[in-house]
């Protein structure tokens, strides 16, 4: 099997919205924290992950190693400088905090 040609996969992703942030969770089995690349270009968030190598010997294969690629277009109101990510057990979690303008605020009622 050739190891030079790498198929590209679209990994499964969840997106959650909390009051103060969005969270994007992506399944990328085989990828460790050093092999994931996250790029934010204007409103385009691009995630690329390369799985750790497996033996190059012939084998019975049901899954192939490839490159995980996924892009997300972000709405305005994300605090771009505070985006953070962590990788655990082949799952990438991106936290995208909302800017002040998107966060809910309590409005005090003044009795007059």
């Amino acid at each position, binding site marked *: 099997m050739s190891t030079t040609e790498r198929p590209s996969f679209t990994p499964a992703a969840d997106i*959650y919205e909390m009051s103060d942030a969005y*969270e994007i*969770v992506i399944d990328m089995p*085989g990828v460790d924290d050093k092999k994931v690349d996250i790029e934010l270009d204007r409103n385009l968030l691009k995630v690329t992950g390369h799985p750790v190598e497996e*033996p190059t010997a012939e084998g*019975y*294969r*049901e899954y192939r190693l490839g490159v995980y690629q996924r892009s997300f277009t972000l709405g305005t109101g994300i605090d771009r400088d505070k985006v953070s990510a962590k990788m655990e057990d082949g799952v990438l979690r991106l936290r995208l905090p909302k800017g002040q303008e998107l966060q809910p605020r309590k409005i005090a009622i003044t009795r007059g």
Partner: protein
Amino acid sequence: MDTMLWPRHSLGLFDRLWEAFDRDWGLPRGEEFPPINVYTNDEGALVTVELPGIEEKDLELSLENDTLTLRGKRSVTVPEGATVLRRERRDYSFTRSIRLPFQAETKKGAARYQNGILSIELHRREADKPRRIAITNK
């Protein structure tokens, strides 16, 4: 750099072993969950399983002779109070048995879970290993 965990082999014996393995398997490729890869040589096998985000306590392995059985489940947890905007990651629960093309040494196997991949090293029983037979010319 060579990162192979198992030495490359060029024995025809191995190829034939593989043919037998494929036949015995009897499953359509790519249909079963979780997906597995199996790398075999005369000494044993390395089985790798794609299982992102599973907790080790929810994973169970058993080995009996030539049959490896995997059991596990994952429940995707939604952060508290969150609104789900997109949900593609699956909850899963599975039991899957794999027949190896050899009798495995049940005391020597080792498994580890890393980066969402479960890797299981299995050793072929000494008595089950192929042996070379020397030809003596008289």
